[in-house]
Each structure stands twice: as structure tokens, then as C-alpha cells.
């Protein structure tokens, strides 16, 4: 009964996004643009101390202030424990038991930890009352770095101890391989705390809808947090609805809960609409950051440049709560040896609690910090052996059929040698130094980044595609759009399959009550997962409609095509789509289709095994993972990976230490570029965020107290700080997404810091091992400054 194969005419087209016009005219209602009649304004009272006991909390005076409608503290929260396990459409989270208190009870563990909520008639009144909430804190000793946190006798952030999670991989005989290596390179690297830094602060409005459902409209990457709100309120999950807005940037920072639980509580208690918008200062103070890492690499290579062993130690700072730290660390562990075939690998990774701000998801999710380590090492191996940077990577690049250290077999094409060569060659003629004190050099860095969720999470997404009676098309999908063109790609896929002009497609997204759930806009998974669900729904709908048209015309469906709003038969006859849709009604054939896409699933691998005396499953925030058990499970952790190679040309001012990027080329095998403009945008945006990570950005903490709570002190790249980024989009067609697409949201942020470090080394001979590579640190590495790095 199936029609002729659909022709993906729209795939690969540079189509302006459906929402671009609304965004240049600013008619999109972002989370903070929403208002309701009788709406209250709410603020969070936060701890000024990074580690303290709450001796007394008294809101009596604040409650009596003008306009104050509600002040909530821990005792007012029906269920004050919030699970921060993996959110989304997952059925199995394995051993994770990450929890925190919605509002602090007797203890605060980081500066900015929420202690109370205030709702008042005006924002000014709410802020004044928040100031008047009396909290008597007794400061306690804290730990502010991982070395102290993991040392015996350190103050405990949580009762069960400061080691939050630990992963190990052991493959081959590392000691023997290192002993036999022609060259052994030791390196220690340090990466920094950084912030997502989206321009839209966290915001939302909640109300109790006419049917009694708690409804929360907010900027989020994860509408499935409605379940967390329900759990906190103690109501069934179907009594909470989350409406996700078009998001003003996410990057992982809107993956964990932000305002939704507070808003749900306040709307539930006050029975009035409530709005909460975080200030920039609040966002920079309290939102989860990227984990800073200390990395220690020992790399052995043969004379011809083959890596024979990698020994890697990773220590990450989780801050005060677990959030997704254990999984971030897992990503690091699995990718620690880079996109290379390495026969002998030992990885030991730990993440520890401190009294610093919590860390959790951020674009790259643990697979990104380690790039700075393994690509710095790779460059040093090449230099030690006198090998060209491209050649040393070509020699070692993974190929289809190779096995990652964790035991996962690479099942798709790896274009790494081609990507590296093209990126490097695209730098063109070398730029001559513009002054005697300026040095110019080039660096290369490659990476691999998983896309899609860990296979034992059993991820899925669903989408609904249907025709209106006039032949216009509707797509419904729960996917939040964070600016990557998530919704637009779904339109493009459905319109292409069903032969409908894009102007005749409407897409409804990100509503937990009204759109089929699709899981999180994280893990570079939305095009892959929801793109597949939409493609499946559209193809099934096409078959349904062409089946009816076939009966109407008395031909086989295979003779028919759906093009430009009509059904065309091979014999030249046509039917208007709306006539066919009327025919569907007469034939009792639906003109819509709901489809579910299930990602490849797998079982937890051996080292996921949890247990032992250090496991305290009922203590909030405690996770502990046992050592690897080689031979257990298939070794498959992720559905697939995206590979990339970046090349940078930089100039180093040896008088000021300032590094300027002259040229930057970023090549990725994206499988298939559904919309090349969007793909390039992901690459260019990810690179610049990575350049910020490499050169500028650093959350500075003084004993847990944040010194960078404004955009005047937390510097993200401005237009003048960065060059044009030249993307190279390679299409192997080998991805698991629609038409062979791979995820490209996260991969481009991985290589920049390493590419710059390698370019600085090429220019000056100095090896930068700590991020960000500020002028001061560069001068220090050049030997122009004395003293310890501050």
C-alpha cells in the first residue's frame, strides 16, 4: 500500500527558520514577557554563606509587610526533597539517587542556596520582604577545592562523605605499554568553572488553571520537570502542566529545575498567578556551572606516533549538590582517551562535593573538559617525535569497527583524518606577524562527543503530524526550542515528506499537556530523537493519505506522489490534497499520525554496578560507583558519536600575553545537514563559546563566595573578541538521526581551548595548561612573570 518513496526535497536546503521573522520583530513572548491578571511577584531568599547552620529562621516581620501574600520556608513545602536524577523520557535511571532540598532545612552548603520564597503584590514589595526575612546563620568550616575535599579529615559537605562518584576503566596493560613506549609525555591540566551565560535569565509564570491543574509557563530545556513539581506538591503527575516557551538560550543551564518548583509551590499556596524572574546576578550566583577539572595524563607513544597507552586521572568539583555530576563524569571517563585507538587505557575519575556552587550539565557535558587534556597531549607527542599535527592524528584516528576503551564498538564511519586535513589546510597561507613582539602559530584539536542519551536510559521521543481540512499541516512535538532551530527542523522534515510548502506548516512544541512528550532538549538529541519521531509520523501519514488517493484514482499507491499540495499519479492525473483529505474522512482514515521513536537501548555496563559499604542510598546527594568489572555488558554506552577537527591560527603578544585568534576553522561530520545554515550556526556558536572557555571565562570564587556575579566581571566573548568562524560541514550520511543526521549541538564546543593552547605552543614554545589562558597566564608561561599563578 505504500506510496512512491518520499523525495526529501527540503533536506539540505538553507531554509529560513519559521520563527526567525517573529524574532526579528520581537513578537515572541519569552518567559519574562508573560503576565496574568492578579499576578504576584516572587523572589528567592538565598544564603549569603557557602557553609552554615541555620539556627533560626523568622519570617514574622517580613510577612506583615505591605503587599506580602506568602512566605514559604522548608516546613511549608509538602515534600521538601527534590530528585535531580536524569529528567526526561527515561524509564531507567540506574543507580542515581541525586537529591536536594527544595528549600534549605537546617544547613546551607553553597552561597546562593535557596532558603525561603516570598510572593507579594509587586516586585518591590517582594524584594523588600525578602530582605526582612530574618535568618540566623552560624558559619561552618567548608571545603572549597577538591584536593581538600578528598583529603582525610576534611569537613563533610554531606554526611556520607565528599566523594560523590567514582568511575574506572582499565583496558590492557598500561604499565607495560608505558615501559615499552618510545616517548612518554606527562601532563597536568586544570579547567575552570564557567557559566552557561545565556542572555535570557531564568523566568516563568505559574497559575492554577480553570481545571485545577497547576500550570507553569517557563523557559526550560525539560518540560518533563512537571513530574518533579508534582512530587514536591504531593499531587498526581497529571495535575501539573509545564508550558515551555521559546528559550533565550539554554546550553544545559536550563536542564535542571530552575523556577518551576518555586512557582508551582507559590501558585499552589496562594491560588494566584505568580511570576518569578531571576536577576543576572542571581543567575550567575546560583545556577549550576560547568565542572572544573584537574586532569593528569600520562601518554605513551611508539616512534611512529601510535599512542600505545593513556593513563588518565580526573578529579571534578561537583559543588555542593550532585545534580548530574555522576553522569557528567561518566561522559569524561568514556571519552578520556579521545577519538583514537589506544590499546592500553586506565582511567580513574572522581567527582567530589565542595561548598562551591553546584555544577551540572553544560554544553559538552563532561566530554568537553577532557579534550583540553587529550589534545594537548597529542600535540606534545607529535612535537616530541617531530610529527606533523595532522599526521599524528591520522595515525591514531578511530575507524569503524574499533573499540573504545569502555568496550563500545564504533559502528559508524569516522571521518576524522579527512576532517583534520581539511580544517588544517583551510587555514591557508600563514599570516606574517604584524610586529616583532608578536608571534603567530597554528594549532589543531580533534574530539568526539556522544549524541543522544546513555543507552540504558531507554530514551524515546514522540511526535504527531496531521493535516487540517484545508491541506495545511500541523506538527505537535514536546521538544523545547532553545534557539538551535529544533522546531524548525521538524517542520522541514514533515513538509518535505508530505509535499507541503513550509508556509503551510504550523508547529506546536513544548507543552507537557498538549504535545506528545519528546524528552529533553539536551545531549544533542532533539534533531536525532524528535527528528526521527517526526519523520516516522510523516511517512506513516503519507502512506495513509496516498492509500486513500489510490482508491479514489483506482491505481496502486506506488504510482502516487504527494507534491506541492496535490497528489500526482504517474499517468498524469492529479487530485487536490483537500479532496483526498475529504476522501480520508469518508473512508474513516485519520488524517493524522502519532509516532514514537525509541533510541537503541542497552543494559548498564559492568562498571555501572553500584553497591558496597560506601553506598548510602537514602542519604541525599550520595552516589558511589564501584570499580569496573571488565567483561560485563556490551560496553555500549552511547548510541553514536559526532567527530570534529578544529584548526586555529593565533597571534601571541609577548609583551602583554594577549592571545588573538586570527583564523578559525571547524570541521564536523554531521552525518546529514538538514538545514546547513542551522548546522553552521551551531558550529560557529559552539566554537565561540569554546573560545570564551579557552581565553576569557572564569567564575572566580573566594572560599566559595562568588566574585563574578555580573556580566561586567564574568566575561563572555563579545563580537570584537572573536574572529569569523569558518565551518566545514562534512556529510557522511552515517548518523542515527533523520536522513543520517548526527547531533551537532554540543560537539563544536569541545576542541577550541585545546586548539588555541596548541597554537600558542606552536607560536611561542610555551605550553598553557590552565584555563582560561589569560594574558597573565600566557606571560607566566613565557617566563615573563614570576610567582605563582593566582
Amino acid at each position, binding site marked *: 500500500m505504500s506510496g512512491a518513496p518520499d523525495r526529501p526535497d527540503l533536506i539540505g536546503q*538553507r531554509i*529560513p*527558520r519559521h*520563527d*526567525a*521573522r*517573529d*524574532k*526579528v*520583530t*520581537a*513578537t*515572541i*513572548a*519569552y518567559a*519574562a*514577557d508573560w503576565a496574568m491578571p492578579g499576578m504576584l511577584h516572587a523572589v528567592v531568599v538565598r544564603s549569603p554563606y557557602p557553609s552554615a547552620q541555620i539556627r533560626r529562621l523568622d519570617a514574622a516581620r517580613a510577612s506583615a509587610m505591605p503587599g506580602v501574600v506568602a512566605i514559604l520556608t522548608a516546613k511549608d513545602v509538602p515534600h521538601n526533597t527534590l530528585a535531580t536524577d536524569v529528567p526526561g523520557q527515561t524509564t531507567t535511571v540506574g543507580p542515581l539517587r541525586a537529591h536536594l532540598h527544595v528549600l534549605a532545612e537546617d544547613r546551607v552548603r553553597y552561597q546562593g542556596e535557596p532558603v525561603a520564597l516570598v510572593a507579594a503584590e509587586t516586585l518591590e514589595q517582594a524584594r523588600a520582604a525578602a530582605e526582612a526575612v530574618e535568618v540566623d546563620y552560624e558559619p561552618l568550616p567548608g571545603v572549597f577545592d577538591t584536593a581538600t575535599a578528598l583529603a582525610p579529615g576534611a569537613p563533610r559537605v554531606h554526611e556520607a562523605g565528599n566523594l560523590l562518584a567514582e568511575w574506572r576503566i582499565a583496558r590492557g596493560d598500561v604499565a607495560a605499554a608505558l615501559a615499552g613506549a618510545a616517548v612518554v609525555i606527562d601532563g597536568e591540566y586544570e579547567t575552570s568553572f564557567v557559566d*552557561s*551565560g*545565556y*542572555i*535570557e*535569565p531564568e523566568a516563568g509564570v505559574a497559575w492554577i488553571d480553570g481545571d485545577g491543574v497547576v500550570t507553569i509557563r517557563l523557559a526550560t530545556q525539560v518540560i518533563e520537570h512537571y513530574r518533579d513539581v508534582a512530587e514536591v506538591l504531593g499531587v498526581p503527575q497529571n495535575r501539573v502542566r509545564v508550558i515551555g516557551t*521559546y*528559550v*533565550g*538560550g539554554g*546550553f544545559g543551564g536550563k536542564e535542571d529545575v530552575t523556577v518551576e518548583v518555586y512557582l508551582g509551590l507559590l501558585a499552589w499556596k496562594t491560588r494566584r498567578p505568580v511570576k518569578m*524572574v531571576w*536577576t*543576572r546576578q542571581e543567575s550567575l550566583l546560583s545556577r549550576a556551572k560547568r565542572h572544573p577539572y584537574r586532569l593528569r595524563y600520562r601518554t605513551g607513544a611508539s616512534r611512529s606516533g601510535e599512542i600505545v597507552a593513556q593513563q588518565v586521572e580526573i578529579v571534578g568539583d561537583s559543588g555542593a549538590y550532585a545534580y548530574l555530576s555522576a553522569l557528567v563524569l561518566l561522559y569524561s571517563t568514556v571519552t578520556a582517551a579521545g577519538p583514537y585507538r589506544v590499546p592500553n587505557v586506565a582511567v580513574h575519575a572522581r567527582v567530589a562535593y565542595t561548598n562551591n556552587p553546584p555544577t551540572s550539565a553544560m554544553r559538552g557535558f563532561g566530554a568537553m573538559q577532557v579534550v583540553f587534556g587529550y589534545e594537548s597531549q597529542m600535540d606534545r607527542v607529535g612535537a616530541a617525535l617531530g610529527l606533523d599535527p595532522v599526521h599524528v592524528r591520522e595515525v591514531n584516528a578511530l575507524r569503524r569497527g574499533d573499540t573504545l576503551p569502555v568496550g563500545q564498538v564504533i559502528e559508524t564511519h569516522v571521518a576524522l583524518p579527512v576532517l583534520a586535513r581539511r580544517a588544517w589546510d583551510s587555514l591557508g597561507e600563514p599570516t606574517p606577524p604584524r610586529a616583532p613582539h608578536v608571534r603567530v602559530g597554528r594549532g589543531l584539536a580533534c574530539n568526539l562527543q556522544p549524541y543522544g542519551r546513555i543507552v540504558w536510559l531507554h530514551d524515546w521521543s514522540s511526535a504527531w503530524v496531521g493535516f487540517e481540512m484545508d491541506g495545511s499541516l500541523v506538527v505537535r512535538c514536546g521538544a523545547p526550542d*532553545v*534557539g*538551535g*532551530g529544533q522546531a524548525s527542523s521538524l517542520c522541514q522534515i514533515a513538509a518535505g515528506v508530505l509535499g507541503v510548502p513550509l508556509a503551510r506548516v504550523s508547529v506546536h512544541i513544548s507543552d507537557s499537556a498538549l504535545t506528545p512528550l519528546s524528552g529533553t532538549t539536551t545531549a544533542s538529541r532533539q534533531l536525532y530523537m524528535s527528528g526521527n519521531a517526526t519523520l516516522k509520523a510523516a511517512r506513516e501519514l503519507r502512506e495513509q493519505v496516498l492509500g486513500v488517493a489510490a482508491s479514489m484514482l483506482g491505481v496502486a499507491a506506488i504510482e502516487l506522489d504527494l507534491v506541492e499540495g496535490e497528489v500526482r499519479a504517474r499517468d498524469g492525473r492529479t487530485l487536490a490534497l483537500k479532496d483526498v483529505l475529504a476522501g480520508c474522512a469518508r473512508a474513516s482514515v485519520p488524517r493524522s499520525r502519532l509516532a514514537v521513536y525509541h533510541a537503541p537501548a542497552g543494559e548498564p555496563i559492568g562498571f555501572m554496578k553500584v553497591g558496597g559499604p560506601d553506598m548510602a542510598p537514602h542519604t541525599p546527594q550520595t552516589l558511589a560507583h564501584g570499580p569496573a568489572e571488565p567483561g560485563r555488558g556490551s560496553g555500549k554506552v552511547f548510541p553514536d558519536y559526532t567527530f570534529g577537527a578544529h584548526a586555529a591560527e593565533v597571534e601571541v603578544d609577548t609583551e602583554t600575553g594577549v592571545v588573538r585568534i586570527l583564523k578559525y576553522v571547524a570541521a564536523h561530520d554531521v552525518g546529514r545537514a538538514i538545514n546547513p*545554515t*542551522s548546522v*553552521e*550556526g551551531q558550529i*560557529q*556558536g*559552539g*566554537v*565561540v*563559546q569554546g573560545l570564551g572557555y579557552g581565553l576569557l571565562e572564569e567564575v572566580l570564587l573566594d572560599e566559595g563566595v562568588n566574585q563574578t556575579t*555580573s*556580566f*561586567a566581571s564574568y566575561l*563572555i*566573548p*563579545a*563580537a*570584537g573578541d*572573536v574572529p*569569523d*568562524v569558518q565551518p566545514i560541514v562534512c556529510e557522511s550520511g552515517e548518523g542515527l538521526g533523520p536522513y543520517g543526521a548526527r547531533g551537532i549541538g554540543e560537539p563544536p564546543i569541545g576542541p577550541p581551548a585545546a586548539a588555541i593552547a596548541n597554537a600558542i605552543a606552536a607560536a611561542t614554545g610555551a605550553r598553557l595548561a590552565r584555563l582560561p589562558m589569560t594574558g597573565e597566564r600566557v606571560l607566566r608561561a613565557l617566563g615573563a612573570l614570576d610567582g605563582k599563578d593566582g
Partner: protein
Amino acid sequence: MIVRFTLNGRPREVETEPHRTLLDVLRDTLGQLEAKEGCAEGACGACTVLLDGRPASSCLTLVPLVEGRRVTTVRGLERDGRLHPLQESFVAHGAVQCGFCTPGVLLTALWYVEKNPGADREQIRQALGGNLCRCTGYTKIVDAIEAWSRRATAEAGP
């Protein structure tokens, strides 16, 4: 106090406290939500408006200071329901991702290029220094501005 100014060509009169910012008055009193608050301290540029044709951070502009002046937001760029060519260029070049910075970027670019018709990419980048974008990496924003600038310059003739 009463403050009178022109907003996108229309005279407006608002009753306000003198300590309120133009951004608050635009958003909360006049319902002009196109100016966004990203940092409330003049560092991100999301709240940019044109004040007598020049970019200003409306989050730092106390509303009495706009008495008698011309305020332009991105809603003032369309003519007869048609996008300004710079807006068209942003759409065509994929210069918009999340869109939160877009209104401010458009206004700064409009001001700069109208004043400096032959601006090169580096000059455009420097001019955008007060408008942060976290999504695009700026390349396509500069593409869009440069393309519009070239076309506008060509149309204006020698």
C-alpha cells in the same frame, strides 16, 4: 511625574516615578516587550533602544531623561507591515538563533551602519561590542549586517 516622549513615531505620555528606568516603563507601563532585560546593568545590550537615533541601554536610562526625546525600539523598524531590509537580512542569513539579543543587535547595527555606510567586518564587530550574543558566535550576525550594508550602499549610488 508625567514624562512625554515619542515612541516609534507616536507621542506617548506616561505617569511614572522618577526613579524608574525606561526599560521598566516600556515593558511594564506601555507593554512594549521588545526591549529585553538580560542584566539590568548595561553590560549585555538586550535592552538597547535608540534614543534620538543613538543606541542606549534602556535599563540604565532613568525615564525622566527621555522627556521630549525620540525612542525607537525594534517595533519601529517595520514599514507598512514589511520588515526593514536589515531584519530581512537577519532572517535570510540565519543571524537569529534564540532571538533574545536580536532586538538590541538590530538597533545597534542600524545606527552604526547608517552612520558608517562602508564599514568592514572588523568595524561592525567593534560596533557590536555592547551587544552580547551567546548563540550565534556572531559570524552570521556580521554576515547579515555586512550584506545589508553593501546593498544599501550600492542602492544609494556613488
